[in-house]
């Protein structure tokens, strides 16, 4: 069997990264694995690759089987790269962000017509500084998986050259439901603005389009502006992050353009009619952590999982429960104003009950339970992670039209 071709390929790969290895030596290693140890040739190539990478202290060469192991010298579309690849791409630096660590010289997003990818240029790579808006050819960079997101790493073996490209790059937006961790472009409407939970946060809220909704955040940085609620924006190259199976958008990297048109946001919005079949513990009057941006529910001993004992807690009302229409049970969460209108117990009244009653906060739970458990209501809200966050709800009232219709229906076939 001839190993010289494979050996050449491996050697080329390493020389691209500035390490010269004698192909004869590689060939010897391959031969030994295949002939003496009965290893499959593709597996042998992979293991020699890894062995040498380790020896010369280079990042792992990935799975590079013979099909993929062209050493990354062929130009790839950004949308086609996957973690583990050695790639050569050409694209435009569409965003630069402040590096998170001194080990990083530059970080940002580079894009071609197929899509965008986050990149990191290591300080040790000595790569030339790239400027936003310019096109570059990046050869032999490695794609890895950082926190579940593909990321292009520019290391000492990568060559970065500015190149000329006069075509305008216009990314195509995708429906929110099709976003995946990485980089995404959408056209969406700001449907909610949330109270900022951190002083570094400029704005957070919910963006929606015809297919769904997604949380967004903008961190405080010079030149960043808030989005207007109910306005539609085209957003290019936002960072899509995933946390606990939920996606969110970081707009600091994005180019944001306001639009005149409107979008009918339908995603997640839901009305459910049914009976309340369970009120979960933790409903009623609760204490929340007063530390700015925390707002977690405290235990009975006023203990916050993060900020420990908080004697100066803030009271709040909420109800967690299950609303059942006989076919499906919906997990519902009612916020303070909805709880007040449904139970008729205001926060002030609940405080009064909790502080002047031997059962304390339990008494509020029991009174609310007795007021609403087993009752028919209609809840309007938004379903997020299979929980209905209720914006408004009302009690069902008897509808004599429905009664008549059912009488007809039951009598029709008898």
């Amino acid at each position, binding site marked *: 069997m001839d190993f010289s071709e494979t050996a050449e390929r491996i050697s080329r790969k390493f020389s691209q990264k500035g390490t010269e290895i004698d192909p004869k030596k590689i060939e010897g290693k391959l031969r030994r694995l295949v002939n003496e140890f009965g290893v499959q040739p593709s597996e042998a190539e992979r293991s020699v690759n890894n062995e040498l990478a380790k020896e010369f202290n280079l990042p792992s060469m990935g799975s590079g089987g013979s099909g993929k192991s062209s050493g990354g010298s062929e130009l790839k579309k950004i949308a086609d790269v996957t973690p583990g690849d050695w790639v050569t791409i050409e694209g435009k630096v569409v965003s630069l962000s402040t590096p998170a660590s001194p080990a990083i010289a530059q970080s940002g997003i580079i894009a071609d017509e197929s899509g965008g990818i986050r990149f990191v240029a290591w300080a040790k790579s000595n790569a030339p500084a790239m400027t936003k808006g310019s096109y570059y050819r990046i050869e032999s960079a490695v794609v890895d998986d950082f926190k579940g997101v593909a990321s292009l790493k520019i290391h000492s073996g990568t060559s970065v050259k500015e190149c000329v490209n006069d075509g305008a790059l216009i990314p195509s937006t995708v429906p929110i439901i*099709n976003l995946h961790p990485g980089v995404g472009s959408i056209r969406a409407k700001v449907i909610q603005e949330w109270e900022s939970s951190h002083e570094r946060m400029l704005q957070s809220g919910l963006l929606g389009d015809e297919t769904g909704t997604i949380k967004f955040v903008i961190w405080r940085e010079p030149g960043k502006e808030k989005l207007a609620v109910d306005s539609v924006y085209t957003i290019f190259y936002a960072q899509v992050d995933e946390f606990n199976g939920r996606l969110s958008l970081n707009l600091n990297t994005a180019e944001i353009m306001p639009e005149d048109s409107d979008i009918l946001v339908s995603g997640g919005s839901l009305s459910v009619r049914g009976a309340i079949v*369970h009120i979960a513990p933790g409903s009623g009057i609760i204490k929340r952590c007063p530390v700015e941006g925390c707002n977690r529910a405290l235990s009975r001993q006023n203990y916050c999982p993060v900020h420990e004992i908080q004697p100066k807690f803030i009271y709040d009302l909420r109800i967690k429960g299950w609303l059942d229409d006989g076919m499906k*049970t919906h997990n519902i969460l009612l916020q303070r104003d909805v709880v007040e209108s449904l139970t008729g117990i205001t926060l002030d009244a609940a405080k009064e009950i909790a502080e002047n009653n031997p059962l304390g906060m339990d008494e509020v739970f029991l009174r609310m339970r*007795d007021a609403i458990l*087993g009752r*028919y209501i209609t809840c309007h809200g938004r379903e997020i992670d299979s929980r209905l966050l209720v914006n408004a709800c009302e009690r069902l009232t*008897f509808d004599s039209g429905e009664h008549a219709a059912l009488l007809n229906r039951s009598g029709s076939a008898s």
Partner: protein
Amino acid sequence: MSTNSRDLGRREGVFEREPARRVFATELRECRYQFREGEDEKSPTFVLLPTGERCNRIFIVGTLTEKQRQGDQNIFYRGRVVDPTGTFFIMAGSYQPEAMQQLAKVDTPAFVAVIGKPNLYQTPDGAFLVSVRVESITVVDKETRDLWILDTSARTLDRIDSMATGTSPDIAKAKEQYPAIDVAVFRKTVFDALAQIKI
């Protein structure tokens, strides 16, 4: 790049609560078949309704007409909840202390909403009995009772209609387990229940 790993992630390990079915006493009384889904100790048991739907939990609203405390060591309460078509037998024991205390507090007669789990028993003389183990019981008003009759009528009619056209395994099983029952009789049950609501 992979798409929508997001949906997979969400589905995994998501707990689905068993819905509370709506059924009139007359239909529940006819149940003769109970089964368990899965081998696990905690897998739910279901009572199969003659109209071809399994239920692990039911929601009923009616009048609590009687309640009785029983047992010395293991105290439990029995009660009778009456709807326009018949009677539900409910019970709450010390394994459901919350429910038992709720039930203990209610003065008869009263409109009550009960969420509970149906169980099928056979008495020594061979008669079948469906009893509902209470998860929670609250006193409600007449309007809630009337809403429940509308709701239960609609659901029962839906099930009767599906028996004619539907093909679900539970429908097939119901036809097999209850060969003597013509579900059309429950149409009459529904009509009678609706007719009792005074406008």
